[in-house]
């Protein structure tokens, strides 16, 4: 609860900084603020209490995900000062909207009430609509914002409709009350339809197939930093919300939708991967690979009655830090080369061995190759799925991991086997710091996963 309030407060402080003409300090201020909130968030560990009539829950699941989101948010903010250099006059606006995105994301991982779920989702989404269009002279950025807004508001409508139906059946917005109702009363068709509509909205937000069509265009059109924000913070928060909602009160509906979830998971992984094969833009490749990663996390949703919160959290950590590293490097390279194609990485192994090595590690981690973090992420997800008997689905996921290697290695091949004519690539200290930190974490968490894997 405190985490959410302080994060919102930090957003307002940043807005004031704009008014007081403190643009130079706004990024450091925001980063320090987020890290302080991160520390404060940890002090809530072990508590299990609700605030404001259980609107916001302070429990380990929420604390862990909030911590991860704050950490990723701080890393991305460190990248922002350089990223928005040309639009210095508005930097404070962007920073405060990014922080509001985080506030929404934290609400999504700690809510205890349907109303809060909806508010969190909207705060996060509306912030992202604005950020997607933050390169306002770039027509593709505008297109991305528009597309995201139209599709996103449609999904929000479906979500509201679903919540209304659930309310009609259970006469409550409170997750605990709904859970009590469901466990004591025979549910009707209305409940199942309501769950189905909420499911659709959730699948939309995590960009699962067949509700994924917005994602590649939006990811490609948005500024790279915002793409990173969407594919890490927003996606992880949506998964946290998804998981919390279904484990706390809709577990009973899982058998009804089991085949839907299974099919969606299989399709998401497969479509994401196979579409990524043909991309020549690195950003689009990451977008499609992000879709397939959502599919892997869906595996944890499919097998959630086996309590898979550890698996999904570990996967989210591994995916989050590898993605931030990959995006940071992509921003550096794209800025120097002037486009976001994979060809831009040609010869990076010679010209910037450090960047190439870091990107290689991030990519190997995303491809799930030991000893990096992503490998254990996949391992935990697969082992939960096998435990709950989804062997066929796991085999599909494994085959897709191999397909994934194919497009990930296109980047590695470009870096190490092709020559480039590009001049020297310059990199600022903030980027170096973020890249080194993410790389080290990818290795450390991979070698010693116990610390995170049994957290929840």
């Amino acid at each position: 609860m405190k985490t959410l309030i302080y994060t919102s407060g930090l957003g307002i402080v940043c807005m004031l900084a704009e008014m007081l003409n403190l643009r130079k300090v706004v990024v450091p201020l925001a980063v320090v603020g987020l890290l302080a909130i991160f520390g404060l968030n940890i002090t809530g560990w072990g508590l299990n209490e609700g605030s404001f009539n259980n609107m916001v829950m302070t429990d380990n699941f929420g604390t862990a995900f909030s911590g991860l989101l704050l950490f990723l948010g701080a890393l991305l903010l460190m990248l922002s000062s350089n990223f928005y250099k040309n639009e210095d006059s508005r930097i404070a606006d962007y920073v405060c909207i990014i922080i509001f995105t985080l506030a929404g994301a934290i609400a999504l991982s700690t809510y205890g009430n349907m109303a809060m779920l909806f508010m969190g989702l909207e705060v996060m989404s509306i912030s992202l609509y604005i950020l997607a269009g933050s390169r306002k002279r770039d027509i593709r950025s505008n297109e991305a914002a528009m597309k995201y807004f139209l599709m996103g508001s449609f999904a929000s409508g479906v979500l509201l409709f679903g919540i209304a139906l659930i309310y009609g059946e259970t006469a409550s917005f409170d997750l605990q009350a709904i859970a009590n109702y469901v466990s004591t009363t025979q549910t009707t068709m209305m409940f199942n339809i309501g769950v189905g509509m909420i499911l659709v909205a959730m699948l939309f937000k995590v960009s699962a197939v067949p509700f994924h069509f917005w994602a590649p265009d939006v990811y490609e059109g948005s500024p790279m930093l915002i793409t990173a924000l969407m594919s890490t913070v927003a996606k992880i928060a949506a998964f946290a919300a998804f998981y919390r909602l279904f484990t706390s009160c809709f577990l009973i509906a899982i058998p009804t939708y089991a085949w839907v979830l299974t099919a969606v998971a299989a399709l998401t992984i497969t479509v994401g991967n196979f579409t990524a094969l043909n991309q020549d833009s690195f950003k689009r490749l990451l977008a499609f690979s992000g879709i397939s990663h959502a599919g892997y996390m869906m595996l944890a949703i499919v097998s959630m009655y086996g309590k898979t919160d550890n698996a999904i959290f570990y996967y989210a950590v591994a995916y989050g830090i590898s993605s931030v590293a990959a995006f940071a490097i992509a921003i550096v390279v794209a800025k120097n080369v002037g486009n976001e194609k994979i060809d831009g990485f040609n010869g990076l192994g010679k010209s910037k061995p450090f960047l190439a090595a870091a990107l290689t590690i991030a990519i190997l981690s995303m491809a799930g190759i030991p000893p990096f973090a992503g490998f254990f992420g996949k391992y935990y997800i697969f082992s939960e799925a096998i435990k709950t008997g989804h062997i066929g689905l796991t085999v599909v996921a494994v085959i897709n991991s191999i397909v994934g290697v194919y497009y990930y290695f296109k980047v590695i091949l470009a870096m190490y086997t092709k020559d480039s004519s590009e001049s020297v690539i310059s990199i600022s200290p903030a980027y170096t710091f973020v890249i080194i930190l993410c790389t080290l974490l990818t290795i450390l968490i991979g070698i010693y996963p116990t610390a995170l894997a049994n957290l929840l």
Partner: protein
Amino acid sequence: MLLLGVLFFPLIAAVLVYLSGNRHAGKVALGLALVELAASALLLNSYNNADALNISFLAPWIDNPHINFHIAVDGLSLLMVLLTTFLVPIIILSNISKTVDNARSLYALVLLMQFALIGVFVSMDAFLYYIFWEVALIPIYFIALLWGEGQDKPFRNRAIFKFFVYTLAGSLFMLLAFIYLYQYADGFGVNELYGLGLSDKEQLFVFLGIFIAFAVKIPVFPFHTWQPDTYKEAPTIGTMLLAGIMLKMGLYSLLRWLLPVVPHGVAIATPYVIILCVVGIIYGSIIAIRQGDVKRLLAYSSFAHVGLIAAGTFALTNEGLQGAVVQMLAHGVNVVGLFFAAEIILRRTGTLEIAQLGGIRNVAPKFATCFMIIVLASVALPTTNAFIGEFLLLYGAYQYNTYLGAVAGLTIILGAVYMLRMYQKTMLGETNALTADFADLTISELLVFVPLIVAIFVFGVYPKPLMDLAQPALDTILNFAVR
């Protein structure tokens, strides 16, 4: 503790080599690899004295799932470790006189590879083993990709990539199988996985998952298609690592992680697997006869030889397993020698086309003699190491099935055909413009051949120490595998 040292020293050495700079990287790497060889000799000593503290180490690593950092050596593991530590300095020495770009990265990767290989051989926890198995793939991928010799770059990229995807695909199914086993065993250790007593159907599925991984790596027909192109395109140093040691990973793993774990699955699948192996032996041999390129010929011959090792292993007799162990070591030694001879020819003449060579013996008698000895060893002439191995393997195959044994025996005849024909066409006859000024071996090249030739004869005449060392481990494996 000594074992920990033997495992992690190559990792430290890799860092040191990388820091030592490009000029001295080769020499530093060689020195450190020799230190590692000495350490592994000490390990042999500890093993003979049954010094439990030095030959095993166990520490909890991950709580959930229960994974222990459990490393230990028995006779079988120890032999594989010794093979690795014996070959790596030779492989480094074979490359040392060659100027390579970015040498420090190359040698660091070679030592990193040694680290992962030793890890594979000493892990007694399936999960730890799996991690080393995968980690071994990364250095060899980069060695083959970045220092490869093929002129056609896109083709090389494709070939090496195919190798990577094939092996990774196989391994992932192995991982699934291990996860499946974990549900019943509640641990990944050898003690937990051996003799689990699953139903026949489950065992068969687990068998298939694990076998695919090994079949790709060994390789067993029809999973071998990555092999010839990869051997051809990789630099010789990479080919030596692949053929000399990395293939043995697959064969060793058959013994350690497949036969004793799912004996009933093995029993059901054995007839088909042995037929595949024998098909591979004949197919590889016949294609080898038709090859015009020395390196490709050696690749197919290697494919045929490991097919025989796999067939003998699946016969599941004591002789078959003994033969497999002896022949794994022999093949490792011989194939490194053969690829080094090919490398020398390539360095001097710039080609490996058999048709363009000839008459080298007239100008380079020392080289011709060394090459001859290794060729004869690889066609299993008595008194050479491969004779003992192939004899035991064929004996094992006969015990399993007389007809299959007879067909597998053709490998010796066909092997003699293509190896001697290759030797004859490249080394004998009249010199031509390419080979007329073929320089004889330098000291450092001779230093590569000498230990290999010594090993060929010593273990060809007196293989007993090897067999004695492996016997207790093989007894345990047979005990679990024949049920």
